[in-house]
């Protein structure tokens, strides 16, 4: 009996490894690249334009009315993005839609903010540097300590690996006085000194209240940020940009995106519809005239153009054929009943997650079950005592099929 179980233990391991690697080999052998369009809004045409790899493998530049452009022509439709090229070619206009422009002006008024799915699932260590945000120097200097926020806000001096009591008490008392409930649930900021200035951190306490914390001339700057009580914050992305329009983006559990404006921490909701932050990437492109919001994933690119107050002016949706929709992807669903993924969405963690491929796999399972019975019959082997092999093939399809045939059954005692 134990020997039988031992055989099934080997089979289970085989199935697990096959369920990870066979789908990978399948795509390695048969995968094709997908042609995802890149969409922009052209202030010259007052309409959307896009580039996409065509059937022949060459990049095509087009507008929505079917017009097609060379790369130079295309870039001229997007003066804010390609200002420097246009200047080099001597074709940069003096004004765009009435607004006088120079390369310098455009660059000062261009900002791009991104939210990538993996940021939501990123392995990290909960220690942060708190920069001096009102430094006398032009570059940001790393502090000598890193902080953590557990039962209190604690600064640990790296050189001695001990707690800096003075700083810890200073900041903790300030936070307590503002009603901060320890420990912190989320600490969002940019812990690097490669940024033009520092706005510290946006911190959620254990009651999901939001605070802005930074160090100003050595003293704690802590401000509670008013937000609707029912807003359940999932993620905050902070961007320190010289335009100083907003501190960063908030993503809620309800898949909404808000900007935290410099103006009294006002929260501005972005007009997104059907945004799936785990599968889609999000970008906010701000140029001197408009703001363009784009989110894409799962075969769809949605682009919204808004005014400065984030009211929608124009909207565009484009599709591309994903691998799942192509023949390769569809056949996969028949061949494999499920797979085990070590990578899920764009999470940077390593998983071992079960992904069911859907009812089409029943065909594959049935096929392998019959094949298995047929092979046993041809080899004149009885199934009898090893009826559980049938269960294995029936539940795991091709993986179990390979496993029970390779690790053949034995005449048991």
């Amino acid at each position: 009996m134990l020997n039988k179980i031992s055989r099934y233990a080997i089979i289970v391991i085989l199935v697990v490894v096959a369920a990870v690697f066979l789908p990978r080999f399948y795509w390695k052998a048969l995968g094709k690249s997908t042609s995802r369009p890149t969409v922009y809004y052209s202030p010259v045409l007052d309409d959307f334009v896009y580039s996409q790899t065509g059937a022949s493998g060459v990049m095509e530049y087009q507008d929505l009315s079917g017009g097609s452009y060379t790369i130079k022509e295309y870039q001229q439709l997007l003066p804010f993005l390609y200002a420097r090229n246009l200047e080099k070619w001597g074709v940069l206009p003096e004004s765009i839609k009435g607004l006088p422009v120079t390369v310098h002006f455009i660059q000062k008024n261009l900002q791009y903010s991104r939210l990538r799915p993996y940021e939501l699932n990123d392995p990290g260590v909960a220690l942060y540097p708190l920069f001096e945000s009102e430094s006398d120097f032009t570059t940001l200097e790393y502090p000598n300590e890193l902080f953590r926020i557990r039962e209190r806000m604690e600064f640990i001096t790296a050189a001695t690996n001990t707690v800096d009591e003075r700083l810890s008490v200073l900041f903790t008392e300030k936070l307590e006085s503002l009603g901060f409930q320890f420990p912190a649930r989320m600490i969002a900021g940019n812990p690097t000194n490669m940024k033009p200035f520092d706005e510290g951190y946006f911190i959620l306490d254990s009651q999901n209240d939001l605070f802005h914390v930074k160090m100003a001339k050595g003293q704690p700057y802590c401000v509670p940020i008013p937000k609707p009580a029912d807003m359940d914050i999932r993620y905050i992305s902070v961007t320190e940009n010289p335009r100083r329009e907003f501190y960063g983006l908030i993503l809620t559990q309800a898949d909404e995106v808000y900007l935290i404006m410099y103006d009294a921490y006002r929260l501005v909701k972005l007009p997104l519809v059907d945004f799936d932050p785990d599968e889609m990437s999000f970008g906010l492109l701000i140029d001197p005239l408009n703001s363009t919001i784009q989110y894409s994933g799962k075969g769809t690119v949605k682009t919204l153009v808004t005014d400065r107050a984030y009211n929608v002016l124009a909207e565009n949706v484009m599709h591309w054929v994903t691998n799942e929709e192509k023949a390769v992807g569809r056949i996969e669903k028949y061949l494999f009943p499920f797979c085990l993924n070590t990578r899920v969405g764009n999470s940077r963690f390593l998983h071992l997650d079960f992904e069911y491929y859907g009812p089409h796999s029943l065909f594959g399972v049935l096929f392998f079950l019959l094949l298995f019975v047929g092979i046993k019959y041809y080899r004149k082997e009885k199934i009898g005592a090893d009826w559980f092999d049938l269960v294995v093939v029936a539940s795991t399809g091709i993986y179990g099929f390979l496993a029970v045939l390779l690790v053949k059954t034995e005449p048991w005692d």
Partner: protein
Amino acid sequence: MIKAIFYKEWLKIRWAFIALVLASIFAIIYICLDVRQSFEMSGALRNWLQVVLRKNMYYSAFRYIPAVSGIVIGIFQFVPEVSKKRLRLAFHLPVDERKSLFLMELVGITANLIVYLLLAIGLLGFSRMYFPAEIVNSTFITILPWILAGFVGYMATAMIALEPSLLLRIVYAVVSYGFMQLLYAGTFLNQFQHSIGKYGIVTAIYLLTVLFPGYRFRRGAK
């Protein structure tokens, strides 16, 4: 009788085990000196930031040591047990073959466990002197899959040695290599934080695999 089997296993692995213990101590000292030097040269904060911002692993020398230990102990334990059909000796003893195999496996697992504990305690111990708690915790989580790979390496070596058929040996080797690749897929810290339990379960399943090849040998499979 159980003690006699332990005695036999110990006779086979004692030198390899002692060598591995020494090698482990050496490795820990090496990593510790490496860290010390880095702290001396670049300062503590820079080193901390390497971990926090770049998610670097200051202990990457540790990576393959458990697997090497597992495979070495497996070889020293099972090759003498199996060459020239010597497995017949073990299977003719008046002890249930399955008990024999499990006891042998227990000795190997214990030997490996001692080596891994030594490595882990050494590494985490000196880490606590240099790094804050959060980083020490991340070190622990990050070395866990490598330790699992050590156990897998050991049990796969046992399976492969015991199996009489070349084809199945290759199958076991390929599959185990595949699984170990999964355990080594991490390139920076904490990646297995949410899934280490699942990988642990598959590793535990390996404990049972040693009986089947033994059974095949017993009944005269080629």
